[in-house]
């Protein structure tokens, strides 16, 4: 659309013709009040708050439906307009209960704000207000009808945004009421988006209601710890006697690729951090064979002593390391560096949920071919293969739906089972469960609807799930790179589970691959690592096999639960000295000799990489006395082993040894507070050995694809990384695909972690009941 110039409140503005006046004004910093208008959702023109005067038009016009054209003149604030808005608010307040002091939305309420601005202070009505009892629609959603102003944001969000359509409007006139689909109950995805968009306190959250006043919280913007999409999330945090607790999660500033979106896990599943099962003291197995609480110093020295002893007597090959899908990139990088340089072993792996290694290999030498999540938001055409994003990648599903709805994107789906996103798809291709290997043949033949349509697409993003591995990835990528008519405009994304499984892979938690998928056999820049063991180590299952055979001296497990994943005979590890860093006493941790209580992703800083390769910064929000970030635990382990800390984490000025944490208070593990001490001692504050960012330069320097825009990253934006950059040496030997076990988490599960979220459990039970009900009907 060509730009047009028009006048608002005497200012000349320019915008593409057809832009909504309300959007054009907001962009120019002219705020027009609105209840019903919500960007991205269909227009309502129902609240009449956005009225403005347009020159030569007899009636006030709604800015939410007026499109701008050349030469128009508008006034958005005048006594007449203020009076119209005031009158509307007066009408709303006629029935609205003025229970602001106890309302969850008090202080964050759009009605309150507008009332403040337009000053409808007097009540014109003598009649009693309607009272209706509050209703609970699900464990997550409560509805207070008298507070509802009928802006229809919730119904639209649920229907248009989520494609769930679980909210409706019943009756008419003043009896109009928002209703849930199952009579008194909500049968839905429990995403809580309706609560989020409600401008008042009509819809409230089961987990947040009546917990606090909004101004009592600090708001920390970080990244969700559940699935691999990596939504930005704002945690509302309040201090407690033993740290700081999270009371709410949303994406308040609507920043990040997820905008206002969060799924049930992101919104309600943070409560695991407060779980009563949380470990807050190190545990060491005593002579009676029982785990008993110990001090950090003791636990670390027991673990370090044993690791050192085994390394020195039997060599690093007798030690194994299993890393995490949820720890930060810095922690993962440090873990592999610690394993390789301190423990002297390449026996390092993680619980792989998809084949990122083959993906990197297939793209080696083809820079610019990986799609970021941002690319999905505006893609013209997407081919989705072997995945059900609605359950496993809620943000991806949201972006796909939005792209189809707002940009008329064309979605193509090839899958072995029906999935909900088919409702948005242009064409579908059914495949037998093991038929993904034939997909490229079908696409090449161009006989099916999908194949024909895909062939005609100028540019295409191919997104595939964990069903596609090894050679299938190679084939699909090769097909894409060679397809006409415009081979330049193809991009790919490979989907895995868990919040930093991509980071685990990128950071080299592989027995045969260094960070950035650099083969251990051709270490390139990594030669600077002192004494890098030259041969590939053992994979996760090989390590467990060796352990079962009694030949693994020690196993360090960081944020992983291999015992539950591949059910092991507990006796299998009896000859292995097991050290576990985790939040909970998992199946694996119960077998350990030393258990070190770790901080969750919400209690630390660093970066994570989502499954699309988008790197985001994680900021410490909550705090829990007694726990430590895995980063600090590893540094202290290394130190306790007498290792050269400086070589592991480049920190401090030359010739200075910095504090190792002894000087800090009870709430340890926090680089920020530590910085005060460092500064007082003339040290460079950012360069503490516990500061994950001390490692960032090294990651940027050594890991192919991670030389990213750091300013943008630190500013809280997602920055795309691409380990398949030209610097990457193609992988020659493929780590076997049989080691890959997708988690296939649902909307309410999140690996081992999710089991400790009471909120997610409740939601899962609620939805199971709803399912049983509809099956009975």
């Amino acid at each position, binding site marked *: 659309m060509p730009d047009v110039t028009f006048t608002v409140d005497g200012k000349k503005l320019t915008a593409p013709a057809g832009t909504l006046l309300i959007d054009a004004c907001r962009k120019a910093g002219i705020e027009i009040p609105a209840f019903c208008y919500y960007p991205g959702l269909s227009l309502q*023109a*129902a609240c009449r708050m956005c009225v403005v005067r347009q020159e030569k038009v007899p*009636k006030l016009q709604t800015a939410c439906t007026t499109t701008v054209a050349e030469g128009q003149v508008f006034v958005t604030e005048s006594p007449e307009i203020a009076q119209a808005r005031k009158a509307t608010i007066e009408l709303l307040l006629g029935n609205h209960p003025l229970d602001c002091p106890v309302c969850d939305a008090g202080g964050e309420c759009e009605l309150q704000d507008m009332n403040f601005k337009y000053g409808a202070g007097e009540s*014109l009505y*003598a009649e009693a207000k309607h009272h209706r009892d509050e209703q609970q629609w699900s464990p997550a959603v409560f509805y207070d009808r008298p507070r509802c102003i009928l802006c229809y944001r919730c119904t639209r969000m649920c229907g248009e945004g989520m494609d769930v359509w679980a909210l409706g409007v019943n009756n008419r006139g003043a*009896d109009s009421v928002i209703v849930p689909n199952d009579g008194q109950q909500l049968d839905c995805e429990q995403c809580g988006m309706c609560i989020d968009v409600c401008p008042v306190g009509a819809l409230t959250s089961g987990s947040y209601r009546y917990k606090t006043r909004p101004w009592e919280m600090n708001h920390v913007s970080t990244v969700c710890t559940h699935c691999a999409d990596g939504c930005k999330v704002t945690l509302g945090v309040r201090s407690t006697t033993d740290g700081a607790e999270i009371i709410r999660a949303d994406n308040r500033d609507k920043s990040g690729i997820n905008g206002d979106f969060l799924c049930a896990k992101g919104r309600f599943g943070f409560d695991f951090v407060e779980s009563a099962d949380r470990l807050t003291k190190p545990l060491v197995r005593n002579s009676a064979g029982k785990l008993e609480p110990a001090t950090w110093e003791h636990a670390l020295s027991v673990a370090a002593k044993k690791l050192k002893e085994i390394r020195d007597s039997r060599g690093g090959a007798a030690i194994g390391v299993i890393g995490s899908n949820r720890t930060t990139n810095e922690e993962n990088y440090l873990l592999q560096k610690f394993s390789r340089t301190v423990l002297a072993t390449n026996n390092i792996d993680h619980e792989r949920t998809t084949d990122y290694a083959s993906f990197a290999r297939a793209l080696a030498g083809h820079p610019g071919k990986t799609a970021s999540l941002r690319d999905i938001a505006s893609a013209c055409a997407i081919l989705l293969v072997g995945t059900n994003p609605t359950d496993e990648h809620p943000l991806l599903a949201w972006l796909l739906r939005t792209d189809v709805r707002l940009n008329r994107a064309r979605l193509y789906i090839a899958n072995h089972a029906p999935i909900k996103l088919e409702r948005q798809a242009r064409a579908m291709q059914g495949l037998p469960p093991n038929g993904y290997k034939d997909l490229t043949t079908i696409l090449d033949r161009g006989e099916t609807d999908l194949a024909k349509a895909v062939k005609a697409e100028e540019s295409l993003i191919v997104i595939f799930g964990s069903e596609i591995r090894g050679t299938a990835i190679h084939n699909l990528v090769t097909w894409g790179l060679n397809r006409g008519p415009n081979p330049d405009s193809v991009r790919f994304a490979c989907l895995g589970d868990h919040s930093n499984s991509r980071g685990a892979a990128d950071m080299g938690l592989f027995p045969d691959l260094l960070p950035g998928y650099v083969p251990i056999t051709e270490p390139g820049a990594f030669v600077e690592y002192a004494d890098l063991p030259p041969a590939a180590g053992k994979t996760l299952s090989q390590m467990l096999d060796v352990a079962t055979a009694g030949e693994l001296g020690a196993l360090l497990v960081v944020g992983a639960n291999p015992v539950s994943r591949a059910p092991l005979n507990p006796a299998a590890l009896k000859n292995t000295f097991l050290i576990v860093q985790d939040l909970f006493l998992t199946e694996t941790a119960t077998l350990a000799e030393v258990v070190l209580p770790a901080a969750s992703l919400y209690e630390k800083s660093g970066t994570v990489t989502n499954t699309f390769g988008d790197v985001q910064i994680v900021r410490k929000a909550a705090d829990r006395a007694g726990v430590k970030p895995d980063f600090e635990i590893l540094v202290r382990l290394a130190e306790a082993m007498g290792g050269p800390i400086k070589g592991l984490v480049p920190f401090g000025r030359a010739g200075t040894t910095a504090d190792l944490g002894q000087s800090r208070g009870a709430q340890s593990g926090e680089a920020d507070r530590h910085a005060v001490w460092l500064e007082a001692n003339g040290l460079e504050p950012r360069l503490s050995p516990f500061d994950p960012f001390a490692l960032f330069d090294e990651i940027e320097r050594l890991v192919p694809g991670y030389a990213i825009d750091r300013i943008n990253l630190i500013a809280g934006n997602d920055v795309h990384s691409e380990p398949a950059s030209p610097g990457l040496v193609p992988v020659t030997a493929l780590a076997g695909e049989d080691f890959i076990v997708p988690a296939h988490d649902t909307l309410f599960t999140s690996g081992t972690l999710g089991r400790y979220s009471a909120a997610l459990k409740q939601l899962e039970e609620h939805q199971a009941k709803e399912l049983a009900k509809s099956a009975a009907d």
Partner: protein
Amino acid sequence: MPRLVSHPDEVKIVSRRFGMGAEKIDRYLELGGYEAVMKCLAQDSDWIINEMKASNLRGRGGAGFSAGMKWSFVPRQSAKPKYILVNGDESEPGTCKDHLIFLHDPHSVIEGTIIAGLAVGAKMGFIYLRGEYRYLLEITERAVADAYQRGFLGKNIFGSGKEFEIITQTGAGAYEVGEESALMESLEGKRGVPRIKPPFPAVVGLYGGPTVINNAETIATVPHVINMGAAAYAAVGTPRNGGTRLFSISGHVERPGVYELPMGYNLKKMIYEVAGGIRGGRNLKAVVPGGSSTPVLLPQEIDIGMDFDQVGKAGSMLGSGGVVVIDDQTCIVEFALRTISFYAHESCGWCIPCREGTDWLKKSLTRFHAGFGAPSDIDNMQYLAENMLGRTFCPLGDAAAMPTIAFIKKFRKEFEDHLNGKPCPFAREGVLQLTVV
């Protein structure tokens, strides 16, 4: 069966077949039926639209928009099918004229619909009747079936090779559905909530296709315009207000009924001569000239010609042509309350000013009429209505606000008399009990 009335001043055009059995297709044909459509089949669409424009036929649904103009807005080319939609939702209190058309002359609606289709290039028409008019729907469905049977509707109408289908539809109790875009929503099986305009129905209407929506009387008039010729039709009325109108005269008159009178006919004459004057020799107190949504007129304001322009000049509206006559034994507060109760009941609830405004007006007036008013209520109600005016999503809000303002302004004294526990001067047993389920 509703009683038919007649008066020598009537000019029977639309009503000329009333009471003659024209609901039967053979009788309709005997009475000159379907000649207009055959005439149109021999002409092109421009000719039809020009005739309509020249006739000065203005919409009989309420807004009085030129029918010919409306038809001319429909794009000639359209990727989506075009439709004709006949608005037989007749729900404005005081209006019962379409009732008689469907009862006595349903084929005239069918014929008019076909002509409208020919004019704009639509191949399908819908006749939507309010749900309460079940017996009229049955009569209309019979007529449509007969027209199909004769080949007047279908794939090859009148052997012309042209196609036209008519589908009948019923509502289920909702005044708001008479609003043209809410009507389309209802016809699509949805809640009767109006649509955002623009786009206007002539461009994006039913099922997304360009749609002409006209009141049943407007459509029933079309064949007569074609038969008489536009000039002759226009000559019956006043400038810019062609032809006649079916006036529903109700309330306190001696001979209530639906009378067809030329546009511009004097309102006073209409009440005192045509309808026989005020019942029981009482005095006139007020007249609602065009259905319940139009501002009330005082006795001294009724010496006006009943066309869109003159009534507008008098500060009210011709609306749907429903003339409600109120005698001096009537409590205006109660009348106002009954009026606003209706709009509160019928507000679709979509927009705040109408949903909340009608509700509060109703509540305040109920209390006020029951004798529990406060002096500030009168100003508050006027303030409230004035703040609804022009601010709502569709004209229903105005329809509630306009009469309220007029009642308060013109009968302020009577409102004041209700205060301070003074009993209603026209006390009648049985207080308003309208409740919403």
